[in-house]
């Protein structure tokens, strides 16, 4: 069981995390941050294994992972 915390102020909406998540935990949200960027958010929260793949690919270090 894992958990991801995404810092919307850092997220640039590149969606790489979505691409690499094996559990499809992450989805684009309709929330935009201070820059007007639609940020990513965890959706299927329970699915997260805490594998950290999303965090490892995030160019903006917007993701923290807990396990």
């Amino acid at each position, binding site marked *: *069981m*894992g*958990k991801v915390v995404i810092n919307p*102020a*850092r997220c*640039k*909406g*590149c*969606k*790489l995390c979505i*691409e*690499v998540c094996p559990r499809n935990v992450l989805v684009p949200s309709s929330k935009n941050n201070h820059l007007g*960027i639609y940020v990513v958010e965890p959706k299927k929260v329970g699915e997260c294994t*805490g594998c*950290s*793949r999303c*965090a*490892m*690919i*995030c*160019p*903006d*270090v917007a*993701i*923290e*992972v*807990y*396990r």
Partner: protein
Amino acid sequence: MKKVFGRTRTLRDTHTHYCPGCGHGIAHRLVAEVIDELGIRERTIGIAPVGCAVLAYYYWDLDICEAPHGRPPAVATGMKSVNPKNIVFTYQGDGDLAAIGFNETIHAANRGENITVIFINNAIYGMTGGQMAPTTLCGQVTATTPSGRNAERYGQPIHVAELLGHLPGVTFSSRVALSDIPNIMKTKQAIKKAFQAQMDGKGFSIVEVLSPCPTYWRKTPVEALKFIKKDMTKIFPLGVFKE
């Protein structure tokens, strides 16, 4: 629950100016993590390039110096000559390292300067708006090659890691890619080896990192990573060319 992934000490918690999906961000993180894992932050000096990473001093919590475009290896040589115990690394783009500054690179490498070079090969000049780099692929359309890079005119892309591998002063030369998780992990290992080589006083170490520039490749970040995997690594094979 325990935090299993978070920001490392040396990476400042700040917004970067990079485009969404830019490889510089990943590379910055890996360098910072390696420095922290090796415990050398307090004796490390970084040299920022002139390129998209020109503002690197805002991102790494390290002593950092600027260098004119292409000259980081010369600046590093000067620095290292003052205090050989400092860990000195440069972080350079393909325009910086392989075009204007290739002479400084080759000569520092040939001298076997005990420094580490992180070489971000994104096959483009990002900073100045997407012009051809020495590593631009043949056929690749850029601001200065509107019909694609023409091998007749510009020759083949330069293979930095291989070329430097031929120099005896180079102790470690490897090409890695930020194309997916396994390769990102390999990239970190390569960077660690490079720094370790410097700590061991072995001479010049370089890691060539194939890195996405979605903006000037005119691709989405996801497409950009696929481009590295499919097209770029065909021309720039990954591997260790000197160890």
